């Protein structure tokens, strides 16, 4: 079973995303900020990461840069999922090593399309 780490400081969003991704057969791990998420990755690197941008402690962008420079951190497919809905943010995220980008609000079809796009479904 593929594992997906959901990183978002909103428990509501995590719950919605969890329900969608469990529906696609993922085993879910949750983190509410970038620091927690890095710890989770050190313990057990997931195949997929759904990543919010704005979070306390360590934001999604910093997390991504840290992830991509740690051993094995190039493996997970990272899909940003954020309210930062402008081209400048998208370009920054892709440049830092994101694989896809979801602009909130999202729904099941969007998550499905984006996960298919990066070969996770």
């Amino acid at each position: 079973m593929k594992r997906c780490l959901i990183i978002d400081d909103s428990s509501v969003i995590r719950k919605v995303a969890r329900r969608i991704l469990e529906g696609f057969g993922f085993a879910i791990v949750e983190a509410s900020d970038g620091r927690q998420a890095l710890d989770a990755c050190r313990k057990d690197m997931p195949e997929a990461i759904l990543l919010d941008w704005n979070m306390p402690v360590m934001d999604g962008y910093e997390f991504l840069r840290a992830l991509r420079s740690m051993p094995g951190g190039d493996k997970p497919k990272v899909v940003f999922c954020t309210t930062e809905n402008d081209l400048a943010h998208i370009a920054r995220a892709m440049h830092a090593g994101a694989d896809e980008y979801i602009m909130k609000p999202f729904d099941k079809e969007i998550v499905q399309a984006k996960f298919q796009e990066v070969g996770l479904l």
Partner: protein
Amino acid sequence: MTPFDFDFLCKLLKERSGLVLTHEKEYLVENRLMPVVRRVGCATIAELIQRLKAPAADALKVEVTEAMMINESFFFRDKNPFDQFRDTILPELIEKRSKRRRIRLWSAAASSGQEPYSLAMMVASFSRLADWQIDIVATDISNEVLEKARAGIYSQFEVQRGLPIQMLMQHFEQVGEQWRISDKVRKMVQFRQHNLLTDLSVLGMFDVVFCRNVLIYFDQATKVDALERIRRQLAPDGYLILGAAETVVGLSDVFAPVPDKRGLYRPKPKPLAVAAVKPGAAGARVA
């Protein structure tokens, strides 16, 4: 709505667009007609139907027909046919048309433009085609969707279902909450109002026809007829691409499925008797 009213609408729609309605769809018909009822100042659907029966109701008939259409579309819908277009069809055509350096593509029920623009974005990614003439003709029966297609402006929701983020970055610009396709891609597509039930020869010959998620709404005879007429506009070594839930198998013998390539069809070679007909005769017939 009375059964007579419903039958009248079915007949109108079938005649005009080929679309077949079944009785379970009655609620849907009412939902879609109510905005028209209000717009033209009728009180009820019954009154609208009375007006449709009056002489010179042609504009109203067009409006009602358009309101009944299912226009849903996505960029790179179902992904697989577009991957095949990029990986199999285009490379093959680049070889075969290297003398003429011209390729003609047709999106035969283009709706709000996602399908032809998806093709245009793929073509744009082939640097070898930079100095070729690539015609992308996009037709639909509905002027309303074509207007949206020509504008090339899509909601955040629409650009996230099937459009890879790299393509969004490369080919779209942001206008407020919406996304507009670049002029470069927009200009690659010619949009034309055209009904698949009418003469197709005016559109010319094509190398590839995307006819997706429209035949599915037609009855058997209309499908067969449309497929035969599409066949006449397709180069003998061209391709037809149907929707994920559509097939020609058991329906028409003018196309054959391409083995191992789901959704792709090639015209069957013409029988000798037909090949002997005077040049110019084929393709000119009006249905």
